[in-house]
């Protein structure tokens, strides 16, 4: 598993539209590096004889019947949106980013 550095964190922050100060980037890069290291130790523990698993519980086929449930109003959907226009989320032009 690749290590995570400060540039990776800055890149992700930009993609996710999260403004981060230089101090925050330093701190987050350090914290994420610890997490990545921890996950790496799991890879070391699991040998070739251990199949990859995405879920710890041996369950399959957890389904929902195709029946309509609750929905939001447009107002509820947009509650918390940084910007909105005529019932829709308004986002910056995307072309020039990254």
């Amino acid at each position, binding site marked *: 598993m690749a290590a995570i550095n400060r540039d990776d964190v800055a890149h992700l922050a930009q993609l996710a539209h999260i403004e981060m100060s230089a101090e925050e980037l330093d701190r987050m890069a350090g914290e994420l590096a610890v997490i990545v290291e921890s996950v790496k130790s799991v890879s070391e523990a699991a040998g070739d004889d251990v199949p990859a698993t995405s879920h710890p519980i041996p369950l399959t086929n*957890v389904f*929902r019947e*195709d029946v309509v449930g609750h929905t939001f109003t447009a107002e509820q959907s947009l509650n918390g949106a940084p910007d909105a226009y005529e019932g*829709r989320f308004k986002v910056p032009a995307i072309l020039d980013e990254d």
Partner: protein
Amino acid sequence: MTDATLSFEEAMEKYDPVLGFEVHVELNTKTKMFSSAPNVFGDEPNTNVNEVDLGMPGVLPVVNKTAIESSIKIGLALNCKIAERCRFARKNYFYPDTPKNFQTSQYDEPIAYDGYLDVELSDGTVFRVEIERAHMEEDAGKLTHMGGATGRIQGADYSLVDYNRSGVPLVEIVTKPIEGAGSRAPELAKAYVAAVREIVKNLGVSDAKMERGNVRCDANVSLRPHGRERFGIRSETKNVNSLRAVEHAVRYEIQRHAAVLDSGEPVTQETRHWHEDTRTTTSGRAKSDADDYRYFPEPDLVPITASREWVEELRATLPEPPAARRKRLQADWGYSDLEFRDVVNAGVMDEIEETIAAGATATVARKWWMGEIVGRAKTADVDPGQLGVAPATIVELNQMVEDGKINNKMASEVLDGVLAGEGTPAEIVEKRGLAVVSDDAPLLEAIDAALAAQPDVADKIRAGKLQAIGAIVGGVMKATRGQADAGRVKELILQRLGVEG
């Protein structure tokens, strides 16, 4: 900037095309893939959503059982193997069409794989397209780019997002590379997408309306010199959302690639956007981090197992395959092989079936679709089904003709009125004052005038040369501006001249 192209013929002389398609099919389940919000097209923005579709923190998706069953049915209809066990994966990317910053999809374990579809070309040739996989995923929200030019992403100031489509169940059908199509590649492209659309519509698992984006095609094209085994570099053209566009886009990309290769440059591997207005493609942009979607197994969903019993149960519910259906319809309708093939090639088989279901005879339905509507669709440059003629309109128009209220020429005019949005056939007949002149007095007046104007023709008819009557009928129709019943006019002319009909 316009890209250089070679003529299609020259491109074909020099190069051999290899195709590949990714067709996305929106399922017509009542609810979304992972949430209970309704799967409905065209509603007020951001109202067919709940916390799952908006990707709120801490929510849990739950799989729609009907969507799984529909996906298995599609796999079976495409002659695929159905995975005994498969799972979902997260496809990570940053783009505002998904509020989660990932799309829930399938990666290394698609629900269906290794299938094929036999596609019939316009002359009856059958071409087998191998299916690599059909996997389940969710649709993304709809972005509208504002400002800049004509709603395109280039130069847009900002974008508006409607998440109603977010989470709508999709099945993505991916072909293996298609070799050997040669100069029939554009036609095969159209026929393949038409065949997929027919299958999912026939299964009843999708509304299959391309104009609503229920079936969407990404077309991969590459060229290689004749005789070379290794594939050339491909482009992937997105946003190809009608059958005609699929054909045109593949043709255009072949011509463009050929010009690039001729110039000695390599083709750029990239996404291209199809523009229906100019019938060209332009270079698209890659999504952020498109080179690495960092797929990983979806931890919020447990795997799907499809027991052989379940698969066989579903197989037993499949309707007759499209090829068998075509045979049955042709027999039911009594069309000749040529008539039926023309109907299929014109893309109006379903429309004719619906028109017959609405009450028309097979002959009447064919007459209207092939005789009136296909030509108009060609002029308008849309698929006939997209022109907006309802089966009920045809039944109503035909009834008016049969009742002698209007003649065929007027019916055609009324159809133009319907398409121009002037109202129902009855309203248009009323508004435009179209009605067959059935009162004999004005007809007799016009007949006398026509006979007087062409005395030599009148003599011929009197002498028994009845085929000459057309000239007089023509004169009468002209005088009545086409509003006369031609049959009645003939009767009256003969009466007037004292000739037995």
